[in-house]
Structures are given as structure tokens and as C-alpha cells.
């Protein structure tokens, strides 16, 4: 945990005064958040407070009512359709439940974005899919399996492999370790760390897992009261005075974990 704030703050994602509301129910109210190049940012918040809404707003899946979001120094409001496509090639998304296409095998799932965007021979495409499968720690024969034949942990890994298909610069992970046993979750944390270092990824990770936050995140952002109420390293979270952050990081379960 030596991620001291870099001198040149190379920001990959910049969210300013974001407002998202469904009907007259405001979910996010003037929220601001930065993601720096090369870091793993953990994003925490209570259930139903809008963590996923923020992710989906950045990805353009949810309409926003106000504020600006820029990714790779490009304002998402002013970007052209072609520019948006080019952006989408540079990010990878792993959805909470995988969202693998159920009628395609794992290898075919990984090849979907490749077919769409790249000019590659079928042999090379197969080699590349096999490589991604191995990089996320799946056995080579997993490539020929359908999502319905995979276990929960394997689905997460396959979904990560698909997110990495185009060698993105940023990956969004929605609760990557939820539903995994502690050993599987720790393995997954290590995997994300290793991939982040070898591929030079920036990772935006929505998570509830205190172990992930402690072991793999460079910085943590906490969402409460429709805003980001605290950003920083784990020690900043522990010293925060905001009541929700306090009860999250210094509650009974958290203290038991930290001691252990």
C-alpha cells in the first residue's frame, strides 16, 4: 500500500457534480469522483445507495440529469457516435452476474468483441481467446463450455476474460468477489492485482468485500447520502468521522477482520 498521490494526476475518469434521478427520486446528488491511471479504486456503499447507478452512468447505460462525466479526457456528452465506439473499445466491463451470452461458449463469448472490432484470422482469434482464458486462471477446456455448465467462480473468471478481450485500459468490476468463498475471493483479488500490474490496467471496482478493499485496492471511495463522502487509503477510511463510513469500516465485522 504505497500508492502515494502521484505528482502528475493522470485522471482516467473524471465525474463532476453528477445528478441521477429516477422520476422524482434522486439517487446521486452532485457527486464528484476521480479515478487515476493505473490504480485500483474500490467503491463502497450500502445496498441500494446507487453504486451500480454510478457505474452504469459512467458506462452510459443510465441517463443523467446533470453534471459531467469524462473518460480519457473526453466529455461523454459532446462525443460523437464514432468517438463513443472508440471509447468503448478502451474499457472492459464485468457485470455482477457475469452477463455471459448463454448461447455461446466461453471462447465465443470472449471473441464477440474481437469479431466486432478487430481484423484477425480465426486461428489468431482462437489463440488469443485461449490466452485470455488461461490468464484469468481457467482450465483450457473451459473455452468449449457453455455458461450454464460453469460454477459461480468460473463464471466470474470467464466474465473477466471477456472484459479483457480487447486489452482495455480501464476495467469496471461490479462486485467481483460476491458469491465466492473466501479462498476463491482471495484468489480473485490476487488475479486482479496481477493482471493490473502486468497489463497496466486501471480498475474501478464496486465491492462489499472488506478483504478485497484491504488487500487489493489502492484507494477507496465511500458513497453515502447520495455523494462520495470519503476518498483515500484504508487508513483514511478508518479515521473518517462520517457515521456511515465509521460503522462500515469500524463495525463489528470490520474490526474482527482487521484484527484477524
Amino acid at each position, binding site marked *: 500500500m504505497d500508492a502515494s498521490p502521484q505528482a502528475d494526476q493522470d485522471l482516467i475518469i473524471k465525474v463532476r457534480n453528477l445528478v441521477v434521478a429516477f422520476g422524482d427520486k434522486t439517487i446521486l446528488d452532485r457527486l464528484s469522483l476521480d479515478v487515476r491511471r493505473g490504480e485500483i479504486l474500490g467503491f463502497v456503499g450500502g445496498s441500494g445507495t446507487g453504486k451500480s447507478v454510478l457505474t452504469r452512468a459512467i458506462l452510459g447505460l443510465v441517463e443523467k440529469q446533470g453534471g459531467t462525466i469524462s473518460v*480519457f*479526457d473526453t466529455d461523454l456528452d459532446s462525443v460523437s457516435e464514432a468517438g463513443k465506439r472508440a471509447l468503448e473499445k478502451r474499457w472492459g466491463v464485468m457485470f455482477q452476474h457475469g452477463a455471459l451470452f*448463454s*448461447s455461446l461458449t466461453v471462447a465465443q463469448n470472449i471473441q464477440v468483441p*474481437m469479431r466486432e472490432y*478487430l*481484423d*484477425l*484470422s480465426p486461428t*489468431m482469434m*482462437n*489463440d*488469443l481467446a*485461449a*490466452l*485470455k482464458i*488461461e*490468464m484469468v486462471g481457467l482450465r*483450457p*477446456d473451459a473455452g*468449449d463450455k*457453455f*455458461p*450454464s*455448465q460453469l460454477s459461480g467462480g468460473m463464471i466470474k473468471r470467464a466474465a473477466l476474460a471477456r472484459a*479483457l478481450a*480487447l*486489452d482495455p485500459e480501464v476495467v469496471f468490476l461490479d462486485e467481483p468477489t460476491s458469491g465466492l468463498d473466501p479462498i476463491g475471493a482471495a484468489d480473485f483479488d490476487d488475479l486482479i492485482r*496481477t493482471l493490473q*500490474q*502486468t*497489463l*497496466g490496467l486501471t480498475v474501478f471496482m464496486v465491492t462489499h468485500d472488506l478483504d478485497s478493499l484491504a488487500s487489493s485496492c489502492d484507494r477507496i471511495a465511500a458513497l453515502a447520502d447520495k455523494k462520495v463522502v470519503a476518498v483515500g487509503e484504508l487508513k483514511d477510511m478508518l479515521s473518517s468521522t462520517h457515521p456511515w463510513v465509521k460503522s462500515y469500516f469500524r463495525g463489528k465485522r470490520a474490526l474482527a477482520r482487521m484484527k484477524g
Partner: protein
Amino acid sequence: MTTTLSNPAFEITFAQDQATIILTGEWTLDHGRRLEIIMGELLVGLGEVRKASLDLKRLDRLDTLGALVIDQISHRLGSDGVKVEMPDASDRHLALIGAVRHRNEPMVSPRRSRLVELLADVGQTVVHAGQDLVRGISFIGEVVVAIGRVMLRPASFRWASLVTQLELIAFRGAPIIILITFLVGCIVAQQGIFQLRRFGATAFVVDLVGIITLRELALLLCAIMVAGRSGSAFTAEIGSMKMREEIDALRVMGLNPVDVLVVPRILALIIAMPILSFLASLAGLFGAGLVSWIYGGIAPETFLSRLQSVINHRHFSVGLIKAPFMAVVIGAIACIEGLNVKGSAESLGQQVTASVVKSIFMVIVLDGLFAMFFASIRF
């Protein structure tokens, strides 16, 4: 970040039996096809050397594809007995190439000849058809047992579900079924009049339409419509419940999915089919009467009195007797296909299609069998 893309390239300099290969440009996914060509050119251009050193310092960018190509180059060279090294490569490049290395050879799935595959397909289809039949019969048995259980303990029956299904099948289905049989009644009467007029036997159109509507047409149209409307809905509902493990949830609560899902649907069909078929007959006869009046000049009073003399209770009951059997066939096929859905969205679509096609086919086969049966007992 939109710097001009620099194409990947390489330069080779030879010194005795050694070669130094300098890689330049962006070795990334965007240049996929180009990289594959480069790999071939490089291996050819290298010729016979004992030692090759790859210089990565002038690479602008490298990603997993570039690393994979470099790894494949060094792997090929290595297997030809060439010593490969990468001096002064940056840590990042080495880490990436390291992550890509050490892969198993891609698995090649064994290919069989077309003929063998075709024969295997045919065989499999035959076996599946046999299994379908056996499964269908045992499923109907299961449903009968479940209905028996319900009769012994009526309190445990899901009346609400039965009423909902009745509404969906009979009440909501009635308008379209009535409309269709009305139109078909009109068409049959019109054609009948045109053909019979040549023999001066226009009045016989009443016999024709009366018998064919009551015995066959109304019920068949009704069964086909119900298979398309309700059979497909049953398959899709039960199938998506299966996909989301809701069926398993019922089982572990000690509830039998056949009791909960299948019996109310099949019972609702058994009640609804005769009703719909009766309504359909009325609509068909009404349409025929209308057309006979307009095209054939047969006044409604004549039409009705002739109908009364031609049609006896047997023609009417044949249609009604067949209806519950059709209901069971449609309901059983729809529910079996629903329970056969596997995990994927594609399989749900396949089962719904199979459910509709199989039930329409079986309805027509069954109708043929009934026709033979009634003919042989002179009913």
C-alpha cells in the same frame, strides 16, 4: 490520446550466424492482421541463424496480442534450434511476455467425416423421438396420479391458479378463436356454394358446412390456436422458471412441480377446450349461414331448418368428445418442453418452438385417429 498510429514493423541485421531483430511501432490488437503477416515475413526473412536477439526498446506500444506474436516467434525459432534472447527489454514488456508464455498447444477437436456425422445425426434424432414418446407417456401418467391426489384432497388444489389459467386460455382466447372460425366458416361455405351450384345442389352447402364445422373444423382450428397461444406460454413460463432454479426451489420446499404448475394448467385446458370448441362451432355456422344467405340466396330460416334436419347430436358430440383429449396432448407437450429447458436463452427459444410444432402435429395425428375410430364404430 489520438496520436497517429505507427504501424508495426521490424528490421533484421545479420552478424555471422547471429541476427538482431529490432521491433518498432505499435504491436497491438489494432494491427492484428498486419502482425500475423509480419510474423510470417520475419520467420522467412531470418533464414538459417543460430542465435537471434529481439530488441524491444523501440516498440511504441505492446499489448497481449503483440506479446503473443513475439512469444510465438520465439517459440517457433526455439523449436528450430535457434537460441532466442531479449536483452535490455523493459520489465513491463517482460512481464507481459511472461504472462503470455507457457501455453498449452491449442486443442484441435477431432474431425469426423460428413457421412458419419449425418448418420449419427439421423440415429440421434430417432433415439430422441423414441425417448420423447416414452417421456410423454410417463409424464401423462404422472399428471393422472397428481390429478388423483387432488381428487382425494381437494383442499390442496390450487384453485386460484386454475381460475387464472382459465381466464388466460378461455376468456382472453375466445375473441380471436371466434373470429378465425367465423372467417373459415364463411370461406368454406362460399367455396361449397360455388362448387355445388354446378350440380344444382346449392342447398347441400348446409350439410357440408354443418358437418365439417361440428366434427372437425371448429375443434382443429381451436386446438391449433390454443397450442400457439397457450401452449407456447406454458413452455415459456415453466422454462424460464426452470432456468432461474424456481422449479428446484419448489422441489426443496416439498412441493411437486407437477401438482403446482402442471395440473392446474392441464385441468384449465381440459375445461376450456370444449367451451372454446363450442363457441368456435357457433361462430363457424354463423359465418356459413351469412355467406349462404349472401352468395347462395339461402334464407336464414331455410338454413336453420335444413341444419336441424341434417345435424344430429352425434355430429355435435364428436367435436366435444375429442376436445379434452386435444387439451391433454397440448398441455402435456407444452409442460414437458418447458421442463426440458436448459440454462441458455437459446434453449428456451428452441423448446417453445418444439412445443408448438409438436402439439400442432400431435393434434392433427390424434384427429386422424379419431376419424378412423368414429368411422369404424359408425358414430
